[in-house]
């Protein structure tokens, strides 16, 4: 546009685009989702802030389900392959994605990881997203369900502070409940806040290290694997 009078240059023209900014990511997510559906792979995208116990939860989940299902894992972190190495010690296949300066996993990165991982038909695939309650919320990866993990050592008001991620999640897991006697955490208020941003969110409480509540989580996976 001309800066003097605001008229349009002779050659310049307007083109209507009318596309979502996320449409490129969403296109890749649809390809991933079709891949999972075609092979009956149940894919869970685990989201949380750093230190909520996602990797420990994942390891205990794998140990419990490894004889029942073929399991594989995509690990997302800014740097290092520490988490993928921890997962591989359980005997399952794991691919590490380092996002570098990036703060979330994108559907395209998951597509490349699938090529490398080649998850078996009828299997479970876990994606451990980068520890971050903000950025991963907007990026559909093609997963079957999003699971947000919060621990009782964090604030009970996090669902209101980071509403996008709780709005996007299908299930919220409250982890480290064995520590409840030692911390000031109002479980009911936390779940109420989560339902305020997402009335349909399902909730579970567990301790991945002590095992309390793990059976409800394992049953949730078994049941949703069939119905999703």
């Amino acid at each position, binding site marked *: *546009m001309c800066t003097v009078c605001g008229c*349009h*240059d002779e*050659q*310049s*023209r*307007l*083109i*209507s*685009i*009318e*596309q*979502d*900014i*996320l*449409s*490129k*990511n969403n296109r890749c997510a649809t390809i991933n989702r079709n891949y999972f559906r075609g092979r009956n792979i149940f894919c869970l995208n685990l989201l949380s802030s750093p230190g909520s116990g996602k990797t420990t939860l994942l390891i205990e989940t794998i140990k419990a389900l490894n004889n029942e299902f073929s399991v594989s894992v995509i690990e997302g972190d800014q740097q290092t392959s520490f988490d993928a190495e921890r997962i591989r010690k359980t005997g399952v296949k794991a691919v590490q994605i380092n996002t570098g*300066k*990036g*703060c*979330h996993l*994108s559907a395209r990165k998951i597509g490349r990881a699938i090529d490398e991982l080649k998850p078996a038909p009828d299997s479970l695939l876990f994606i451990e997203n980068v520890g971050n309650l*903000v*950025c991963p*919320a*907007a*990026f559909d990866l093609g997963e079957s369900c999003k699971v947000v993990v919060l621990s009782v050592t964090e604030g009970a008001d996090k669902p*209101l502070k980071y*509403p*996008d991620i709780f*709005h996007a999640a299908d299930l919220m897991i409250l982890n480290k409940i064995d520590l409840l006697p030692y911390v000031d955490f109002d479980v009911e208020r936390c779940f109420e*806040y989560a*339902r*305020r*941003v997402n*009335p349909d969110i399902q909730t579970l409480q567990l301790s991945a290290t002590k095992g309390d509540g793990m059976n409800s989580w394992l049953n949730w996976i078994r049941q949703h694997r069939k119905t999703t």
Partner: protein
Amino acid sequence: MHELSLCEDMIGLLQERAKADHYKQIKRIQLEVGKLSCVEPDALIVAFNAAAKDSIAENAALKVNEIPGLGWCDQCALEVTIEQRFDTCPHCNGYPLEIRQGDKMRIKHVEVI
């Protein structure tokens, strides 16, 4: 800073359109960003300037039109303006409100040569 990868995707998308729509350079991009969407318009503009370097959109002006959030209150049968996802109805204090507008981010049009 997911705004950076959103800008990279947006530029990639406009790059794909360039051939079909016969343009070589983008001079202006008009966006609509909802108040309830997960991006900060200011962060988007900073990220855009970094992402646009050496691309079809280098030196393009990014214009962001912010779209207010609207929610529907079942109780009052009214559409109400909201600032956040978890806002309650200003009339009856009830929730949840059904989001009717303001959670999207779209490229509306581009000015090209």
